């Protein structure tokens, strides 16, 4: 099924080392649309990372509509999440990914996502 998010996902996926890009509903952690390489569990990433994102936003007193960027760094890779409201852009990065480039791609995609949703 085609969704309005195809182009955004493609841009994030084009950053070196990105193994998955997902548009996720933050409130329930469900995937709205996504592209992932073989071996990346998109549904699990979305559910777990959305929960972490919600907690991080709460910890830092994020208000409705305020942008937040959350990055989880581990030995074997990273997860980046950026959003302004209920929809967030997530990216799964391999260990040797270009972090700076991916960060810019995710944040830009999140801005465009918010614009698509009429929130920017």
């Amino acid at each position, binding site marked *: 099924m085609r969704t309005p998010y195809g182009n955004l996902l493609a841009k994030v996926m084009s950053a070196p080392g990105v193994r998955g890009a997902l548009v996720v509903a933050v*409130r329930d952690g469900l995937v709205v649309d996504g592209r992932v390489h073989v071996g990346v*569990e998109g549904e*699990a*990433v979305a559910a*777990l*990372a959305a*929960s*972490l994102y*919600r*907690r*991080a936003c*709460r*910890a*830092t007193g*994020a208000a*409705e509509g*305020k*942008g*937040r*960027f*959350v*990055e*989880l*760094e*581990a*030995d*074997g*890779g*990273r*997860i980046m999440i950026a959003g302004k409201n209920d929809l967030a852009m997530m990216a*799964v990065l391999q260990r040797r990914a270009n972090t*700076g480039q991916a*960060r810019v791609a995710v944040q830009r995609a999140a801005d465009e996502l918010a614009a698509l949703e009429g929130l920017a």
Partner: protein
Amino acid sequence: MDGKTARSLQSLSEEVATNPNSTAFVELAAAYRERGDSERALRLCLRGLQRHPTHVEAHFELGLIYEARGERELALDEWGIVRQLAPDHVASRLALIRLYLDEKRYVDAEIELNAARERAPADSAVAELWQALQAARRDAAPDQAESAASAGLFAALEREQPGTLGVMLVGGDGQLLEGRMTRRGVESDRMLGVTLNGAKSEATRVASHLGLGELQGIVIESAVARLTVSPVSDGIVIVATRAEVPAGQAARLVQRARQIAETHLGDKQR
């Protein structure tokens, strides 16, 4: 929704069964919750919310169900939704305040109490909770003074690095060990420590479940600040910088704060 439900379980069940669009599921879920059947209450409420996603009382009830199940974070989520949908919903604010008081989150409790007092100045429950907050703060004062005494470990680092908003060392049990962060005081720092310690535990589980290996850190950025949470041997180091501090510079600051924390923890063990 607290207290005895006015209608019988049978009558409510029949209505929900015969009319899937009915909002009687809220009352029925409350009845099940009050009887201790939180599992059935949860299923009913979640199913009902699929049809009525903005039903305020349903979100409030779902929060009560989560609270009854001990899932406080989820309860906070639901009452937060109620607050957005219906800012004048005093019952949800009272529920939030009780939970905050129970978790010793006095600053958050005070913010909610002030909002509740504006909306329901004559409400006796609001007045009671206000008194409870004052009493809890008096009891907590000696502990706060003790914690405030140990803010110096990272003081030199904070002075050296422009744009540093604060550095804290939090123990594995969520206790604030060293440093300070916010200008709102020790209690606020403590709550931040507890919450971010929980976030670190959650991030560890996420990394492990997704096969990403050991957690190295979490970065949380807003338009004004960047917060980095890094695990150390028995706890976490939290570093806050202004958003305009370059990411590379912030990373070096975090590295130095971790070294200081590890040395401090090592000295304590010896």
